[in-house]
């Protein structure tokens, strides 16, 4: 493992030689520009240099005569971007799915939105757009106007005969979704079962695709803050923070330290309510409704805290480029501390429950086990990775905001099953409480916002934060106007979904809900 980004760059320069231009400190730790074809060598060199390497995202960018393809990869302490360009009229590039299986969905998404053909991709099907989408219209290319898109009138999906519980040979096909009591969100999963055993899972995502990335290009940076935080109502502050950081990186704005601490408090409150939501929802999915009702009852004080700090129960709308919009009042601090102290006591009860309750353990232990090797290969993030003994946490690896100054533990469990993923979240609730208490105790004085220009100079940047579900990543390209040129969002569930397709196979159909919910899936994030 490497300690600093600089060593890695030296190694890469030696390996790739003349074929790559390496620019340190740009688009993460470094940006490596290569010709198409050499991108595989660059990724191979990175894989050999760092065992924790994974694909964070693949961004497509419309560069006029060329389509830029950016492979954002995660090294132990940050992001390294491998960038290449393919001609617009003949957009073809070799797939990297054989090197990094986790790149599968990312490549399908770029193929959908930019019309890039990934040669050698194992399953080059449509991923996010509707089946009615017109052929050869790639929405994120600049010439495509939203008002001119004409969808195909007939929907093959609706007109196709119902495939639920249809039989194909020995396998029975069970369709879950788009409307299903177990799914709060409209997504479809076709599960092929042989008797009780799951043999194959085919997801169809894209039901919540709202074209946020395209819309962000036609709105100002100020409007975009409110747009991106509505990508996901649960981790809204994370989206807003990540976007603001990306803009601030281009502007070279230093956020006041008080704002950094307030952001940390907001992000951790987001994490508290998201983790409690999931741990309660898990109870519902495994047939333990009492747990759900209890957990959600005790989650309400967190919603009240959010309301106290931001004025709204769910969507905070408190982040702004250059700081935060609201200060924390002195008289609110004791209220927050009292709520957290009560919460800490109550969480002790739930932790004992998850550790000792026989029925809960039977439903979650040894269910959906993901080995460390698979976790690394599939590039999973957040509690899913940490439950499989992969210690990645953006807050520790590449500290943002005030996380570098705040002491906290990184929670890692080794068993890799659904239970481990729940326990990671349970322990993270304690850490979040500690972080908020520390931040309140060390809240610096001074301004909480600086004025920033509305027009952002041309440039590119990346930002990533640790959302409740794992690493959330933004790539931003500006063009010197008040509107961004490209906003790329890679959300944690998009990275984690691949692991479900792996772990569900070979298990019984009855274990699918527990396994699935242990990822904390959020499809409004995934589809954008």
């Amino acid at each position: 493992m490497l300690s600093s980004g600089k060593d890695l760059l030296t190694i890469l320069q030696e390996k790739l030689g003349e074929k790559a231009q390496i620019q340190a400190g740009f688009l993460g730790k470094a940006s490596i520009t290569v010709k198409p074809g050499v991108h595989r060598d660059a990724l191979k060199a990175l894989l050999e240099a760092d065992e924790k390497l994974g694909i964070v995202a693949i961004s497509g960018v419309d560069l006029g005569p060329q389509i830029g393809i950016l492979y954002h990869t995660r090294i132990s302490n940050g992001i390294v971007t491998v960038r290449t360009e393919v001609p617009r009229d003949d957009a073809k590039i070799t797939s990297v799915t054989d090197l990094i299986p986790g790149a599968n969905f990312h490549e399908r998404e770029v193929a959908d939105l930019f019309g890039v053909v990934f040669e050698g991709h194992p399953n080059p099907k449509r991923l996010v757009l509707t089946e009615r989408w017109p052929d050869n219209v790639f929405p994120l290319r600049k010439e495509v106007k939203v008002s001119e898109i004409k969808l195909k009138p007939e929907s093959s999906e609706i007109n196709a005969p119902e495939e639920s519980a249809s039989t194909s040979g020995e396998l029975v096909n069970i369709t879950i979704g788009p409307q299903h009591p177990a799914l709060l969100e409209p997504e479809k999963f076709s599960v092929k079962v042989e008797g009780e055993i799951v043999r194959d899972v085919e997801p169809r995502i894209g039901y919540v695709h709202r074209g946020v990335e395209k819309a962000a290009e036609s709105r100002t940076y100020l409007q975009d803050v409110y747009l991106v935080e509505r990508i996901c109502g649960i981790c809204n502050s994370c989206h807003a923070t990540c976007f603001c950081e990306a803009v601030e990186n281009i502007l070279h704005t230093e956020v006041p330290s008080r704002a950094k601490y307030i952001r940390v408090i907001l992000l951790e409150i987001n994490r508290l309510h998201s983790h409690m939501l999931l741990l309660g929802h898990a109870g519902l999915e495994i047939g333990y409704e009492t747990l759900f009702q209890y957990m959600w009852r005790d989650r309400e004080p967190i919603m009240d805290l959010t309301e106290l700090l931001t004025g709204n129960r769910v969507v905070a709308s408190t982040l702004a480029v250059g700081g935060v919009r609201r200060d924390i009042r002195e008289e609110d601090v004791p209220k927050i501390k009292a709520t957290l102290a009560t919460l800490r006591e109550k969480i002790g009860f739930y932790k004992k429950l998850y550790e000792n309750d026989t029925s809960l353990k039977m439903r979650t232990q040894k269910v959906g086990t993901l080995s460390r090797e698979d976790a690394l290969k599939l590039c999973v993030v957040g509690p899913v990775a940490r439950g499989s003994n992969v210690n990645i946490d953006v807050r520790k690896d590449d500290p943002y905001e005030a996380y570098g100054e705040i002491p906290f533990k990184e929670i890692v469990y080794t068993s890799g099953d659904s239970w481990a993923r729940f326990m990671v979240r349970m322990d993270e609730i304690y850490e979040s409480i500690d972080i908020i208490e520390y931040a309140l105790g060390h809240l610096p004085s001074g301004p909480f916002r600086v004025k920033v220009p509305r027009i952002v100079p041309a440039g590119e940047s990346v930002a990533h934060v640790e959302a409740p579900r794992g690493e959330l990543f933004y790539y931003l390209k500006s063009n010197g106007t008040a509107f961004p040129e490209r906003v790329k969002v890679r959300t944690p569930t998009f990275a984690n979904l691949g692991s479900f397709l792996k772990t569900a196979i070979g298990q019984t159909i009855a274990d699918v809900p527990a396994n699935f919910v242990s990822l904390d899936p959020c499809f409004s994030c995934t589809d954008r």
Partner: protein
Amino acid sequence: MKIPSPVMWARLKSPWVVHFNSGACNGCDIEVVALLTPKYDVERFGVKLEPSPRHADVLLATGCVTEQCAERLKRIYDQMPEPKFVVAIGTCACSGGVFAGNMNVVGGIDKVIPVNAYIPGCPARPEAVLDGVVKLLNALKGPPKTPAPKKADEKLVEVKSASVTAAETKPLEAKSNA
């Protein structure tokens, strides 16, 4: 159509609701779920969350309606038995909200199916959803005996139509964007 009174009595006493997310950000959905939990406890009004649209009286629809979900939403509405009522929860469900005019977005539940009550808010607070459902039920009883609510209340929850006959479903139109 006048509903026989015992049926109406039962319906008002215990409306069964089905929830459908037509492309929401989860904000409204977690607030709808919060309604069922001890703090708000909507079951004390007899409201029961029902997984199947075929057993439900009221459709609680959230989200800005994506193209993929539009057909599903219509299908779920068609599956519900008559008489049926639709409550649009959240600003997105009322008008498309922040996503209005985006690609792949139809924008608003009432572009696809008729809506009886609109509950704005981003997300709509559980109290507002509760208030909306109760107002819908009151509207079904007939003209209110109490004086009409003040202006401020009307803004919060607007009960648009309390017609018990299902209005004709609007056809899915090709999107016209700004």
